[in-house]
């Protein structure tokens, strides 16, 4: 679990984020630290400069020995107060002790001043008073101002910086702690988020596993948070729904195929067996052979019809799609069936508003319409009426076949689209019960709902295309 957690994108992203955020905080706090430190040094420098100035003034008005006396007094004052604030010292030029310990690289010219930060130990060595204060630790720092006086003397003023140093150290530690804390919190948050994401993904993965094991009815859990996971799950569920439908359709086809082909195959087998007992040149044998061929042809027809439906349903054959002119389609089919209607004594007329087009597969549309026209011709009695029409109605284009036959009772209208369904009054006529299934499949492929309506009397089948294409 931990390893997988560390491997999530969310965790890696939050780690990067934590690093970035801690970095920003470090820079901000660092700059506060540096400006505080600079401020402290500047204050000390000002004090040192003022002190040095007053001692120089003293030297200008008084004698050298009075200066030495004042320095001694001030040092004693400072020590008595327990403060290690100011240390003063004088040195003469031949020794250059100050330079050695405090400004080793740059000997000072006459009348010049220089600041430095040195350790207390070095300071004491410079003023040659190793016993000055044993209470100082090695790490304590001092700020020092060295001034060159006339005649080669040097004046040293020093301020104890240990308290300020302690303050800065404390600040430094706090900053470090804060940064570490922020980093830890951000990382922990990342782990929490990663864990949450991992749990959602695990749920999806488990569902997917169950589905792969064969339970197609499983669906991804959708919470009411409506977040990106929920939206993804909804899409996945829609995809699963579609897959399940396709699988179911496939099952149905296979089942139906097995069932519906068994009868004619059995008949065919019987005929061939029967022919074994007939002499080759007998009329009976010839007849059996003819019938067997007819059986095979019927089988092939059923088979082809099922394949056409399957192809239309699978949505393949998109290559052959184009803009289909409905007036041409209606005229072609009308003319094809006109003579059939005439032979049967049926009034048939076909009309199409000029200029109507739909985007689709011309062959499949024609096949669907011929199925409807075949049905209409089959069930309409002599003297009846059939109409083939294409017309625009607001946003839709209606392609319809109407007849004056017996129609389909309202309660059976949904059922007739299923494969191999034949209503009772159709059983005596030839047909395989696949005609309307193909019409439905073709209509679905073109996103055109099929409506069955009462033509009073008769049946009216309408394919409703979207005119907006």
């Amino acid at each position, binding site marked *: 679990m931990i390893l997988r957690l560390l491997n999530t994108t969310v965790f890696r992203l939050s780690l990067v984020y934590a690093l970035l955020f801690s970095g920003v905080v470090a820079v901000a706090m660092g700059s506060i630290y540096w400006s505080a430190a600079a401020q402290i040094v500047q204050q000390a420098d000002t004090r040192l400069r003022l002190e040095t100035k007053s001692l120089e003034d003293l030297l200008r008005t008084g004698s050298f020995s009075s200066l030495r006396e004042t320095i001694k007094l001030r040092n004693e004052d400072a020590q008595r107060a327990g403060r290690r604030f100011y240390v003063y010292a004088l040195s003469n030029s031949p020794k250059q002790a100050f330079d050695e310990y405090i400004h080793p690289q740059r000997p000072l010219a006459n009348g010049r001043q220089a600041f430095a930060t040195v350790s207390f130990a070095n300071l004491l060595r410079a003023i040659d008073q190793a016993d000055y204060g044993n209470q100082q630790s090695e790490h304590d720092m001092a700020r020092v101002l060295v001034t060159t006086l006339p005649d080669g003397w040097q004046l040293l003023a020093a301020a104890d910086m240990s308290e300020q140093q302690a303050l800065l150290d404390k600040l430094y530690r706090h900053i470090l702690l804060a940064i570490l804390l922020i980093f830890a919190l951000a990382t922990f948050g990342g782990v929490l988020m990663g864990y949450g994401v991992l749990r959602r993904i695990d749920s999806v993965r488990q569902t997917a596993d169950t589905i792969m094991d064969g339970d197609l009815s499983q669906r991804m859990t959708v919470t009411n948070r409506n977040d990106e996971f929920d939206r993804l799950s909804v899409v996945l569920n829609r995809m699963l729904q579609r897959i399940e439908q396709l699988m179911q359709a496939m099952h149905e086809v296979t089942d139906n195929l097995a069932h519906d082909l068994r009868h004619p195959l059995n008949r065919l087998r019987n005929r061939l067996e029967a022919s074994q007992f007939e002499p080759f040149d007998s009329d009976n044998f010839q007849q059996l052979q003819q019938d067997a061929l007819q059986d095979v042809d019927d089988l092939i027809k059923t088979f082809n019809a099922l394949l056409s439906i399957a192809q239309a349903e699978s949505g*393949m*054959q998109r290559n052959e799609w184009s803009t289909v002119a409905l007036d041409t389609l209606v005229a072609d089919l009308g*003319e094809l069936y006109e*003579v*059939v209607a005439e032979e049967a004594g049926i009034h048939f007329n076909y009309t199409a508003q000029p200029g109507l087009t739909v985007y689709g597969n011309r062959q499949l549309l024609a096949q669907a319409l011929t*199925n409807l026209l075949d049905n209409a011709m089959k069930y309409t009695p002599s003297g009846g009426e059939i109409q083939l029409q294409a017309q625009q109605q607001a946003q839709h284009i209606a392609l319809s076949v109407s007849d004056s036959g017996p129609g389909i009772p309202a309660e059976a209208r949904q059922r007739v689209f299923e494969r191999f369904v034949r209503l009772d009054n159709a059983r005596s006529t030839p047909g395989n019960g696949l005609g309307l299934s193909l019409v439905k499949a073709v209509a679905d492929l073109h996103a055109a709902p099929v409506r069955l309506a009462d033509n009073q009397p008769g049946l009216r089948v309408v394919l409703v295309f979207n005119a907006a294409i």
Partner: protein
Amino acid sequence: MVYARSMNILLVEDDKATASFIQKGLTESGYIVDHAADGEDGLHLALTGQYDALIVDRMLPGRDGLSIIQALRAQDRDTPVLILSALGAVDNRVEGLRAGGDDYLVKPYAFSELLARLQALMRRAQPAQEQTLLRLRDLEMDLMKRQVRRADTNINLQPREFTLLEYLLRHTGQVVTRTMLLEKVWDYHFDPQTNVIDVHISRLRSKIDRDFDVPLLHTIRGAGYILHDPEAA
């Protein structure tokens, strides 16, 4: 139809039973048939031999049918090719024709359908001079004036009837099937579920044959129709 020599057909088909069935049927119909059982042999024979037509199965071991046709066309051979295939979707048919096939027959098929289509193909392969007048016995079709006359009587045909008769006249003496007519005259590539074609043929027959002594348009049972002069030698 009298040919100076027998027509040579190359059959490329890997299924032995199918191949021997087609070979037998074609031989009995008067053709000389060579058979190749795989794609490489088929292409070799097609390139080296002299054939009037090829029958090529689409799925073959070695080299598939479409690639044979492509290789053949790449060498400027325009021998007519009939493709046999178990793949019957519209897209598959278009692929076959685009590869250079001349006609596409989906399995399972009736032998009469195969024969009719093969004959139609070879007729098409004959040097086609632009005819403006088609004639059979006393039936005349003037393609320029779009007129049909029989024994000097004008016959009034609907446009589609005219196209139908033109197709039949161009294939005089050959059996044409219902599926072929639906494809070539109406451009629909699916099985006619009912007898629409029969009705159109009988309508045409009543116009060109009914008032005359010698019938020209005949039904071949279980196969289709044939337009021919029964009294011609």
